[in-house]
């Protein structure tokens, strides 16, 4: 019954769509245009990198990311809770639990082998979220009171926020917890093959050169050591993706403006999530750095809003 109306509407719509198309362009012109565009793109790629949706010179990204995090450091936790509706805590718990840091109790009592305490390097872990969970898991679940965590962050404001928070934990001032200000692409203060577990949670998408950071992770890890990354990723379900994009582009910058008084930083945050490679591409990057991937290579959290990637350095 509604067919005539439907046809009229669709015919009208298609006329409008056709009219909106660009006028005919001869093939030779379009080829030349495409070549010019490609050259321009290549020129840009040589020197620039993404900063959210913007293209910025590679040398500039570090300082601009720095500015973002210096600006948000003080309200970082409140904002994380509000933006993720407290779910980031569940993700971080899941991340740490699946890694099972610390020496396993049944094996550490075996007389045959003397295991050395683990050294865990938490990159971009300024506020200590992951580090405190690691120490807590090792101590309370595995009864391991020897393994230690090095927290590294490029941003002194975030590190001081973490140090402030560590005062409320049992590990404040203990040698199990130490702090390093470093760029994850140049970890010269960390020796080769000295780390058991390298973690980076919600940090790697801000790195200027992700592949360089992965190679650096490969260098500092002991043979058999594990690289683990928790990061925002691509949502698999179209419906969920629609709702999620609405939330991230609509609500998050607004919350940032109201709570932290800084809209630009949170606009950068959602744009950087959008620019981060998909699960498959990122797993390929980890493998290219030399790691062995588990099967399956990643674990999606909440349909792919975030994902846990792991890699093991071969012996």
């Amino acid at each position, binding site marked *: 019954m509604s067919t005539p109306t439907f046809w009229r509407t669709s015919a009208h719509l298609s006329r409008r769509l056709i009219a909106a198309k660009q006028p005919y362009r001869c093939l030779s012109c379009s080829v030349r245009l495409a070549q010019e565009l490609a050259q321009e793109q290549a020129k840009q790629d040589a020197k620039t990198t993404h900063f959210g949706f913007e293209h910025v010179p590679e040398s500039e990204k570090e300082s601009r990311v720095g500015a973002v995090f210096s600006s948000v450091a003080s309200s970082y936790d409140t904002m994380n809770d509000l933006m993720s509706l407290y779910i980031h805590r569940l993700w971080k718990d899941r991340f740490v639990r699946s890694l099972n840091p610390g020496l396993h109790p049944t094996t550490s009592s075996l007389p045959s082998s003397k*295991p050395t305490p683990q050294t865990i390097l938490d990159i971009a872990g300024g506020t200590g979220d992951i580090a405190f969970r690691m120490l807590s898991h090792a101590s309370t679940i595995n009864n391991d009171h020897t393994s230690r965590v090095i927290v590294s962050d490029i941003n002194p404001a975030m590190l001081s926020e973490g140090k402030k928070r560590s005062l409320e934990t049992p590990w404040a001032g203990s040698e199990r917890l130490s702090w390093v200000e470093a760029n994850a692409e140049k970890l010269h203060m960390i020796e080769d093959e000295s780390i058991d577990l390298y973690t980076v949670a919600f940090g790697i998408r801000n790195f200027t050169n992700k592949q360089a950071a992965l190679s650096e992770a490969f260098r500092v890890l002991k*043979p058999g050591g*594990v690289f683990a990354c928790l990061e925002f990723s691509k949502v698999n379900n179209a419906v969920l993706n629609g709702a999620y994009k609405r939330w991230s582009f609509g609500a998050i910058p607004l919350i940032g403006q109201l709570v932290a008084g800084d809209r630009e930083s949170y606009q950068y945050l959602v744009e950087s999530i959008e620019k981060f490679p998909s699960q498959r591409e990122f797993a*390929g990057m980890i493998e290219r750095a030399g790691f062995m991937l588990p099967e399956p*290579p990643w674990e999606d959290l909440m349909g792919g809003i975030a994902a846990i990637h792991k890699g093991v350095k071969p012996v």
Partner: protein
Amino acid sequence: MVNSKPCHAALKPSSCVRSKPCRRLYHSYEHERPPPFAPTESRILSAALSHVPTHGFATAALIQGARDAGYLDVSTNLFPTGPFSIVNYHLVTQRLALAKDAPSTNDTANNISENIRTLALRRLHANKPIIHRWQEALALLTTPAHLPTSLRELALLSDEFLFLAGSTDVTSTWYTNRAGLAVIYASAELYMTTDMSKDFVETEEFLTRRLAEGEKVKGLVGGVGAWAGMQAGGLVDGLRSKGIWI
């Protein structure tokens, strides 16, 4: 050989991210099967399996296995399913081991049921060294998260039995045979965990009885099916003779 190469980018199925040989979806008599586990994984898992009699199917065995292979405790992150990966390793390797000394194709034609019995017994005996821990494995196998993998593995095992025994059915019995054999094998495996007899003779008898029952049921179902088909045909013919257009 073709199989040992990493899969071609254009033909990559969705599960193939890494440069590991792809799973093959058909059987070839000419080419060997690609190995089911990467070398490192199988080194750690086989070492872990040797610790199962003492530690059970648990994280402790996996960690010991990693250490024996020269890896760290934390390297067990290579196995997201934890202890279940040891169970899976045992199931897959033992299934593939069946093909090594299977009855040759010449003497398969006459006695398929006897071949099936021999193969099932050989597979059950492969569980001997870890039988006192097998209930832990069964618990892991029936965990909801692992159930799809376990059922798939059981179906593959049942298929392997029938294939190696020389069964060439291509009718609907292809499905019923495999389903029936899977049920019989799984129950025999469960029976074996509480079998205290010497050299598991009671399990052997149990298996023989179940297989004989299976044959009987198969005959009965076949007979009933033939009878029902006959009756249905007669009914249709009768109705047609009354002028109903069927």
